C-alpha cells in the first residue's frame, strides 16, 4: 500500500486530467458528434427506406386488389351483357319465327281461300258448261230422236217400260 501511494504521481494525475479533458472535448466536437449524428441519420434513412418499401408493397397489393376487383366487375358486366344479348337474340328469333309462322299461315289461308274461290268458280263454270253441253247434246239427241215417228214411239215404249219397272 505504501509503495502504491509512493508510486502515485500527482503531477501525472494533473497532466492526465488536463490532457483527457482536452481529448474528450476534441473527440466529442470533431469525432463523436459527427459520427453519431451520421450513424443516426443513416439508421433513420434505412428505417425510412424500409418503411417506404413496406408502404409501397402495401399500396401495390391494394392496387392489385383493385385491379382484380375491376377485372372481376368487367368480367361480370361482360357476362351480363352476353346473357342479355343471348336473351335478346333468342327473343328476336322467337318473335321472327312467330311472325313468320303467322305470315305464312295467313298466306296459306289466303291461298286456300283463293284456291277455294277459284275452285268454286271453276266448278260453277264447269257446271254451266256441262249444263250447256247437256242441253246442246240433249237438243241434238232430241232433234235426232224426234225426227221420225218410229223412234218417237220407241221412246215412249222405253219410258213406259221404265215407268213400270219403277
Amino acid at each position, binding site marked *: 500500500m505504501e509503495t502504491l501511494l509512493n508510486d502515485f504521481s*500527482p503531477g501525472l494525475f494533473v497532466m492526465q486530467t488536463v490532457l483527457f479533458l482536452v481529448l474528450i472535448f476534441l473527440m466529442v466536437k470533431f469525432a463523436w458528434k459527427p459520427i*453519431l449524428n451520421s450513424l443516426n441519420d443513416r439508421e433513420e434513412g434505412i428505417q425510412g427506406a424500409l418503411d417506404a418499401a413496406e408502404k409501397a408493397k402495401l399500396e401495390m397489393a391494394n392496387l392489385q386488389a383493385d385491379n382484380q376487383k375491376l377485372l372481376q366487375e368487367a368480367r361480370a358486366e361482360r357476362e351480363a351483357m352476353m346473357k342479355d344479348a343471348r336473351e335478346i337474340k333468342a327473343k328476336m328469333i322467337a318473335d321472327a319465327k312467330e311472325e313468320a309462322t303467322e305470315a305464312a299461315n295467313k298466306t296459306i289461308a289466303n291461298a286456300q281461300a283463293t284456291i277455294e274461290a277459284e275452285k268454286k268458280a271453276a266448278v260453277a263454270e264447269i257446271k254451266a258448261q256441262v249444263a250447256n253441253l247437256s242441253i246442246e247434246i240433249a237438243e241434238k239427241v232430241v232433234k235426232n230422236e224426234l225426227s221420225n215417228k218410229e223412234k218417237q214411239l220407241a221412246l215412249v215404249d222405253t219410258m213406259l217400260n221404265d215407268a213400270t219397272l219403277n
Partner: protein
Amino acid sequence: MKIAAYSIKTLSVLFFLYSAISFAGVKEENLNPQDGGEVNTQEEVTEYILHHIKDSHDFHLFSYTSDGERKHVGFPLPVIVWTSNGLTTFMSSEFHHDDAGKVIVEKNGVKLTKLHSKIYELDATASGVNFDAEHHPTNAKKLLDFSITKSVFGVMMIGLLMLLWFSRLARQYKTKQIPTGFGRVLEPLVLYVRDEIAKPNIGPKYRKFTGYLLTVFFFIWILNLLGLTPFGFNVTGQLAITACLAIFTLIIYVASGNKHFWQHILWMPGVPVLIRPVLAIIELAGTFIIKPFSLLVRLFANISAGHIVVMSLIGIMVVMKAELGAPGATILSFVLSMFITLIEVLVAFLQAYIFTMLSALFIGMSVAEHDHDHDHDDHGHEVPDAEDVRADFI
C-alpha cells in the same frame, strides 16, 4: 475484408514478435554496471520488472554494451518540475539514465536528482543523497512533477491517434454513407460501444454520455494494447491515470444524478426510518468511494499484473538457465510468455470493456427513471428489480 483480415493477422504476428524481442531485452538491461548491465539473478529480474511498470522520464528502447561501455538507445523527454524556485524545465538526458540518485542536476538554483523514477529536490546544503535504513532519502523532498513522462507521451500520442482516426471517419460520412478503409474497422467498434454498452446500461438518455464512454473505451483499449508493444508503455497501469479516469466517471454520474438517485442514497424509501441513516452512510460510501475505487483499482491491477506476469515468464529464461540449460529455458519462457501475451490481448479489450460498461452502468443508475408504484409491495418493502439486483453484484 480479406485484405483487412490478412493485414491484422500480419500485424499481430509482428506485434508478438516485437513483444518477445523487446522483453528478451531484459537480460541486457543496465542494472549492474560491473558485469556490463546484465540481468542474471532473480533479484535483478524482480528489480527490472518493478522498474518497468513505473513511469519513466525518458523513452528508452534498448541498451547494449560495447567496449565495456553501456549504450542506451531511445530519446529523452522534457522534465517539468515545480521546485522551491518555481517551474523548472530541462531534458531528461541531463540525468544520463541515472535512476539511483547519483547524478545531481543544478537548474534554476536548485539541486535535482532522479531516484526510482521520481524527481527529488536536494536540500540546498547537500552534495549527495543520503538514505535511511529503508532506502528513503533523508535530505531530499519529492517534487510536483509535470514532466512529459513516458506515460504522458503515450497519452498524447494515443490522443492524437484517436483524433486522427475518428475525425477522418467523421469526415468520411460527409461524402458517403458507408466508410471505407480503416473507417470500416472503426465504425463497428463505435456502434458496439453505443449499442452494447451505452444504450442498454443508460437507457433513453444515452446520447449525452456516449461521447465520454467512447473516448474512455478507445483510450483505455489502445493504451492497453500499446502496453503490450515493445515500447514498454505502462500507461493504464499507472494509478494516477486510472484514478483520473475513475474520477471522471464519478463526477459525471454524480453531476447527472436525478432526484431518485439522491433520494435512494440519502433517504432510502421503503425501509424503516431508523435504518435509513445507516443505509445513507453505506450508499454514500458506495457512491463516492467504493465505485470509483473499484474502477481505478481493477484497471490498474489487471494491467500491472499482466505486465508483471509477462515479464516474469520471460525472466524464466534467466532464472531457470541453470536447471534447464539455455535452450530449454528459452523455449519454456517463449511458449509461456506467448500464451500469456495472447491472454493479455484479450485482457486489454476486456478491461477497456469493463471500465466503460461499469461507467455506463453507474451513469445509468444515476439517471434512471424509477417507476415506484411497482417497486414496493404491500408492506412497503422494495421489490428488487433487475437493475438493483445487478447493482448488488458490483
